[in-house]
């Protein structure tokens, strides 16, 4: 970099790259410890994969991460500290299941219209939960069956262990809903690690008593906004980092017209994003290879606003699980008042891949046709429409999180957390607890901050 190009130069104890929840939490902890910190954020906003916009009437619309649930204690504590309150996700009435050409209504996390299928589903979930408990959260690659589980995809396991086609469909939908990928993409070991990391599959897929239980009144991005507000001018926006150099003296971070020098740096981002930065000296081979092997899931999040949550009067919860529609999963995402009524839908995995680059009008028409099929003609006429295509976000590259295909945990697992000289790693992908969730991001920021504080001179 030509010194003449530098407009801003900052010196701090710690530089943090990424102002999502992980990076901001790390900065909060480091600042609270009395050390100086600078956060560099590529986007013109903070929050990472939490992103809240406002509808015309001011209703917060979460276009990214939005839910918290039981055992997510760190985000709960943070919210309390920031004065942010939550409300329960609407979970009353019957859910709709469309499977193998038939429409059923049911209540609860598991479709029970066919008791035989439901029984086989419960048995499968129990088996997977018990397998998941065998995965050590800090070192998944040391599980007794790690070699075998990491050599196969969830699809492979499903084909050899699940006989009933309806149960296979349900597991496929679970994988899409939780990871936004297909079962063929995902290492069985990573799936089991992730399940254990959240507690169990029931918690992952449930609304009440599960990961989708509550939402923030003001939107989930408010967490990041409030932390950033407190950090003030220590958060630098529109500063995409191009290169990181390190030597015995410290680290030097080049973000275009901004230069930051620090003792240590925390890279608080998905591994694949860290792979887009140049390093001097280059990253160790294993770490660099890891960044090539943790792709992001593919999800499009769509929300349609209506004057009221009209489906509630029909006894419907707003939750749909469909095996024949690109918009395969929906929820009632209305505010507590039910006004406006908001239907939230996801296109995940293959559907996300098929529709991410399509013409917006065609995609919108597909969404509305699908919602009309689920909820009737009123669903075809929203007053407002929001969509977020995470795979088209340059500084996210997808969502919900980076995942591991087969072979990655057992070959590179130890490199996920190991600092590279003065560079430390944060991001929800590095968390042993609630990996992939906002809770995991916050925990990873706290852990990385503790790591760095212990290393500072």
């Amino acid at each position, binding site marked *: 970099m030509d010194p003449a190009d530098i407009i801003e130069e900052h010196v701090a104890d710690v530089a943090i790259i990424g102002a999502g929840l992980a990076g901001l939490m790390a900065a909060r902890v480091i600042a609270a410890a009395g050390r100086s910190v600078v956060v560099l954020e590529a986007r013109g906003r903070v929050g990472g994969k939490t992103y809240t916009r406002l509808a015309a009437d001011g209703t917060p619309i979460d276009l990214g991460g939005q839910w918290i649930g039981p055992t997510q204690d760190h985000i709960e504590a943070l919210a309390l500290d920031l004065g942010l309150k939550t409300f329960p996700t609407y979970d009353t009435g019957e859910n709709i299941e469309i499977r193998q050409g038939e429409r059923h209504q049911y209540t609860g996390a598991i479709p*029970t219209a066919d008791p035989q299928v439901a029984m086989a589903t419960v048995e499968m979930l129990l088996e997977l939960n018990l397998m998941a408990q065998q995965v050590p959260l800090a070192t998944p690659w040391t599980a007794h069956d790690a070699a075998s589980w990491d050599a196969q995809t969830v699809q492979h396991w499903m084909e050899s262990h699940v006989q009933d086609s309806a149960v296979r469909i349900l597991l496929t939908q679970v994988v899409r809903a939780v990871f936004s990928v297909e079962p063929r993409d995902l290492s069985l070991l990573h799936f089991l690690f992730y399940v254990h990391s959240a507690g169990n599959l*029931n918690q992952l897929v*449930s609304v009440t008593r599960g990961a989708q239980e509550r939402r923030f009144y003001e939107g989930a991005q408010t967490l990041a906004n409030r932390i950033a507000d407190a950090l003030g001018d220590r958060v630098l926006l529109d500063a995409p980092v191009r290169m990181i150099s390190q030597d015995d003296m410290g680290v030097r971070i080049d973000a275009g017209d901004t230069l930051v020098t620090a003792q240590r740096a925390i890279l608080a981002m998905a591994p694949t994003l860290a792979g887009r930065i140049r390093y001097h000296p280059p990253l160790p081979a294993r770490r660099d290879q890891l960044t090539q092997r943790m792709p992001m899931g593919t999800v499009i999040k769509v929300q349609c606003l209506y004057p009221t949550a009209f489906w509630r009067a029909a006894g419907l*919860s707003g939750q749909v699980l469909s095996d024949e529609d690109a918009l395969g999963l929906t929820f009632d995402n209305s505010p507590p008042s039910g006004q406006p009524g908001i239907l939230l839908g996801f296109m995940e995995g293959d559907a996300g891949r098929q529709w991410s680059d399509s013409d917006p009008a065609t995609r919108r028409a597909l969404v509305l046709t699908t919602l009309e099929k689920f909820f009737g003609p009123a669903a075809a006429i929203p007053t407002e429409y929001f969509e977020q295509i995470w795979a088209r976000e340059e500084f996210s590259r997808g969502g919900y999180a980076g995942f591991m295909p087969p072979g990655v945990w057992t070959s590179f697992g130890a490199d996920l957390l190991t600092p590279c000289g003065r560079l430390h790693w944060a991001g929800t992908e590095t968390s042993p607890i609630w990996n992939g969730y906002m809770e995991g991001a916050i925990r990873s920021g706290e852990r990385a901050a503790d790591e760095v504080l212990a290393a500072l001179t």
Partner: protein
Amino acid sequence: MATPDELRAALDDYIAEARKIARVQKALHGWHCVIAIEAIDNAASFTLTIKGAEVAVATGSPATADVILRGTSEDLANIFWCDANPASNYMQGAIKILGSPDDSMRLDAMALMIYLETQQA
């Protein structure tokens, strides 16, 4: 509201059902858990002890419980009589399960399996 005697009778029926169902017995295998069942509206309490697929019930609270299952006597009775789906949106909110995620998951699985089996019968 269900009386304590009615709740106990429902629980006895429930346990008898659990013992009859091979798939439930398989699911319980290897699980050791003491469950306190508490009705919030009539102070009835029971202890369900699960040890390696053996299930026993006693009136009164255990000295220490791994899991506490708490709800109104009517909601609890509806579950034990298999009149209500324990995994329903309503029951998930109405019945509180306090305990580790692992124990809660096992209890959920057992309850849903017993319910589903009775639906098929």
